[in-house]
């Protein structure tokens, strides 16, 4: 039961159905979409009957904009709700002012940053003057500056009752006046003002992976001594003729290097170049004798040879899944000899166990939770035992448990003498792991 005007943060383990609840409240679920028990009432009526009273903001800014000009996009919802044309533009302008959108109405949506797109999407929702505002991890796919832009917009009073789902609690705790903790099967297990809930249930919530303020995983660094050089980038640029300074970096055995910089600076492309997946637009990638392999440039190495030297973990894991089960995923790839097959099978079992995936070995990779998908993509990259691992935003949108597990795994890999290149915005992750930081752009 949520009263009018309240701002509530919904917490719970990932895969606990928080996003589904928001969609149901928005009246977007069909009755046959799953086993529905009970009913959701908004203003005392069924959610689907009062669709016009609710507004929903989703995670992905690119999946919410419809029109090519900013003002047209805000007007889209008003047109659908048949608001008379002469009243549309004043409401569009008011909504743009309310979210602090800094450009004119005819600004092209393609030219906006992620944070600006998400602000615009929020304006599109607020223009409908919803009584109930549903926010589904609205900053989880943004870089820190973009997330700050959106939080700043959300901090302004809307008058609407607000339900927020968000992993990074510390960032949003100032935006809410009540916290509700959900547990699959048990329903509401904690409810109250943020300070009281975190005081009474903090340890318990942290153990379930919630980012409880003051109980975050440790970001203390362990001392390490780097070994021989394995792989390096010399004057590498992601795109030809960009003003950003070229990347010069050498990865040594047992060393982690962080690659940071604002969105759009080409970090992912530089990572793909260092990983041997793309030819460099400028500069070259140097392979050292300890890495082994042919003398050709890394991006021309045969794929099966490449994966034994350099592994890659992508930002969106589902792009790289090839098979219909987790276990098969670890054995997919180049054909091997029978003996190599047997050892690959043994190694895959060790990896599944190490990454906590044994229980879901038979599941389809696409049905896993975000955290499980991330761990699986790390496991597939490790299956061929590469000396160098390139990770693109490995901690993006992860709960605290997955975060800590990834950090520990990375430390083990470094202890084994592997080198890591981590593209990340995550300050805590950089602090805990990175021996050096390279800033791009």
């Amino acid at each position, binding site marked *: 039961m949520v009263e009018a005007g309240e701002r509530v943060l919904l917490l719970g383990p990932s895969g606990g159905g928080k996003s589904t609840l928001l969609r149901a409240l928005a009246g977007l679920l069909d009755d046959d979409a799953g086993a529905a028990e009970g009913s959701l009432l908004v203003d005392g009526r069924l959610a689907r009957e009062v669709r016009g009273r609710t507004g929903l903001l*989703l995670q992905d800014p*690119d*999946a919410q904009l419809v*029109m090519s000009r900013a003002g047209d996009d805000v007007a889209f919802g008003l047109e659908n709700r048949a608001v008379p044309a002469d009243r549309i533009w004043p409401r569009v302008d008011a909504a743009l002012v309310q979210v602090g959108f800094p450009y004119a109405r005819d600004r092209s949506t393609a030219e906006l940053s992620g944070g600006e797109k998400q602000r615009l999407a929020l304006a599109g929702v607020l223009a409908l003057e919803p009584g109930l505002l549903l926010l589904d991890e609205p900053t989880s796919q943004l870089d820190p500056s973009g997330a700050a832009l959106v939080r700043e917009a959300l901090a302004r009073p809307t008058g609407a009752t607000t339900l927020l789902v968000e992993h990074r609690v510390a960032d949003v705790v100032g935006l809410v006046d009540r916290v509700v903790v959900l547990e699959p099967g048990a329903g509401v297990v904690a409810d109250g003002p943020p300070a009281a809930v975190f005081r009474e249930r903090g340890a318990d919530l942290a153990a379930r992976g919630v980012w409880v303020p003051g109980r975050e995983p440790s970001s203390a660094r362990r001392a390490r001594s780097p070994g021989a050089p394995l792989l390096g980038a010399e004057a590498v640029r992601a795109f030809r003729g960009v003003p950003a300074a070229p990347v010069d970096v050498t990865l040594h055995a047992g060393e982690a290097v962080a690659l940071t910089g604002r969105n759009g600076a080409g970090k992912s492309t530089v990572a793909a170049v260092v990983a041997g997946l793309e030819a460099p637009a400028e500069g070259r990638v140097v392979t050292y004798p300890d890495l082994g392999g042919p003398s050709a440039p890394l991006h021309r190495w045969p794929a099966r040879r490449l*994966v034994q030297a350099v592994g890659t973990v992508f930002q969106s894991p589902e792009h790289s899944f090839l098979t219909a089960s987790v276990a098969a995923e670890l054995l997919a790839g180049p054909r091997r000899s029978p003996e190599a097959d047997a050892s690959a099978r043994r190694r895959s079992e060790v990896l599944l166990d190490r990454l906590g995936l044994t229980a879901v070995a038979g599941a389809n990779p696409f049905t896993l939770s975000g955290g499980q998908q991330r761990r699986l993509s790390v496991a597939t990259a490790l299956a061929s035992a590469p000396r160098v691992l390139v990770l693109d935003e490995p901690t993006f949108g992860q709960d605290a448990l997955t975060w800590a597990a990834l950090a520990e795994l990375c430390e083990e890999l470094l202890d084994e003498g592997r080198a890591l290149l981590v593209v990340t915005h995550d300050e805590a992750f950089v602090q805990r792991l990175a021996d050096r930081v390279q800033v791009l752009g």
Partner: protein
Amino acid sequence: MNPLALLLAATVPALALLISVDPVTPTVVLVATAVALRLSPARPVDLLRRARPLLLAATSIGVLNALLSQAGGRLLVDVGPVTVTTGAAVAGASTALRLLAVALPGLLAVLLIDPVDLADALVQQARVPARPAYGALVALRLVPLLTEDWTQLRRARRARGIAAGSPLGAIRLFAGQVLGLLVQALRRGTRIATAMDARGFDSTGPRTFARAAVLTSADRWLVVASVLVTTCAVVLSVATGAWRPVLG
């Protein structure tokens, strides 16, 4: 300018060009297109860049037609088996010019049309239902995102140790990647449909229009001008004796 008026103005000359193969009609149409380009806000560079494949096609088809034509006339080129007469050169040039004159006005129109305006005009003036019209608009917006997905899928396959190896392997690799792209397109499509429906796009009631699609007198004059140019081109072609109907 109204998108429908632009498209109509670009289509009228094509109708005349379809029924005759001669050098005069397309030349007049192309001159008029150049004038329109000069008067429009479009930059000639942009049109040239988009027309590059078209120019290539027109040139090669023109040359091929000149070489294969049986038309007589004074001998222009005579190198071994290759002979080109004046008649053949005219035939080749006509085909090339005709292709350009059919396509270039359309390309110019597309360059001048904002997809949102087109969707507005289709829904309000051509009575196309709103859902498919604005749905197509969103699909257009997804194209650059799917290009990114394709790059990711390609990188991911190499990172998994998968390479073509043989021509058959290349086909299998490509097919797998296409399937992956379809999966991504569906996921993106579902997500954006959710966001659109949350803003009332699935309501069955009436809809209002924030931007009124209007037909101004300039739009009417554009269509009239297009009809006039086309008529002049045909009259000039017949008067000079160049007119060669395709049928009969």
